[in-house]
């Protein structure tokens, strides 16, 4: 009987800490999320073992952002056992096909690139943010990327993902601790995005 009363008392004290934990979780989870992605239903995208990664379009003031992210994407794909065509080889084919603007690559171009590089899929995309942004009390890195995989036979988008990372952490904002660097943030966003696929 005494045991039951004790247990009842213990149960009564549970909702408080639980609610507090839930509230803290909500605060910490604010802004967290996995990349938004699309996978074409009729395609087994995970069976792709060889891919060409085209230069990424840079939509930031850092003109090398596209190349920096591209290098990270290639390295992430390689660590997952996906064979990646050498970037130099891709550049050579783009030059041969007289493709000057990355934003102007057509379906026909994709087909030609696929044929010349002997790949069934090419990856392309853009870097929307890559830099240090100023917040209320702190500066923080911000990186956002968009990646797409295109089927070289049809020119269709078979996978697409958009992801972002960065922002001021709780400790940086309130206690001035050192946050993540721009490179760490870039690596995080690339890893998360490629993780979603392979």
């Amino acid at each position: 009987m005494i045991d039951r009363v004790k247990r009842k008392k213990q149960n009564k004290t549970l909702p408080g800490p639980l609610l507090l934990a839930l509230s803290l979780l909500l605060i910490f989870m604010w802004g967290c999320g996995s990349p938004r992605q699309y996978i074409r239903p009729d395609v087994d995208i995970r069976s792709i073992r060889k891919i060409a990664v085209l230069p990424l379009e840079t939509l930031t003031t850092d003109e090398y952002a596209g190349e920096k992210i591209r290098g990270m994407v290639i390295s992430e794909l390689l660590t997952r056992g996906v064979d990646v065509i050498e970037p130099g080889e891709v550049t050579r084919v783009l030059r041969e096909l007289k493709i000057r603007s990355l934003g102007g690559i057509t379906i026909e171009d994709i087909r030609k690139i696929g044929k010349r590089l002997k790949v069934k899929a090419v990856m392309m995309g853009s870097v929307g943010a890559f830099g240090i942004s100023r917040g209320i009390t702190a500066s923080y890195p911000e990186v956002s990327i968009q990646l797409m995989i295109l089927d070289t036979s049809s020119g269709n988008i078979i996978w697409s993902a958009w992801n972002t990372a960065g922002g001021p952490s709780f400790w940086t904002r309130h206690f001035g601790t050192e946050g993540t660097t721009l490179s760490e943030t870039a690596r995080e966003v690339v890893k998360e995005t490629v993780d979603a696929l392979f």
Partner: protein
Amino acid sequence: MDLLKKYALTGMLCLLLLGAGCRSSMPSFHVRQDVDFGFIKRVAVLPLNNLTNERFAAEAVRQVVISELLASGLVDVVIPGEVKATIDRLGIKSVSSLNTKQIKALGTALGVQALILGSVEQFGMVRMGNISAPNVTITLMMADTGSGSIIWSVTSTGVGGGFMARHFGARTETMSETLLRVVKEAIRTLAKY
């Protein structure tokens, strides 16, 4: 005392949820009621009109719109390069003022049932009292390539610094997060149909 603690914690939780819910205003949108959106399987997202001082704003928003349309599973999207090449081939100089004939011609050439066009009105930081927060405003429209008329239109806006950020020092969104939220809210109005 226990009861008071419980009420205080419940109140805090409600405040958090309210704060999260109050962060943005609902986008204002128009959908033509006599149109069956089920027939739209593939769309082309045209370059957006940049009405900001940010050089890459329109293209950055366009990429998120393409990604969100695909991720929502609503429609298939033509690759941006194909759209650009077709616009050039048809000799269209400005996509911000397309006439019915041009909309139909683009639809036929790209093999799409609808075109997405629009503009970016705000893309930058704004001051809100003692804080700075990202602010994004976009307008998107869908034009039926069969008739050449606008069948969906939405204006969505968002500010990164919400209630909790302004009053309790909670985390503000980054520009990218605000952008994603604004685009998501805009496309959600289409998903209902």
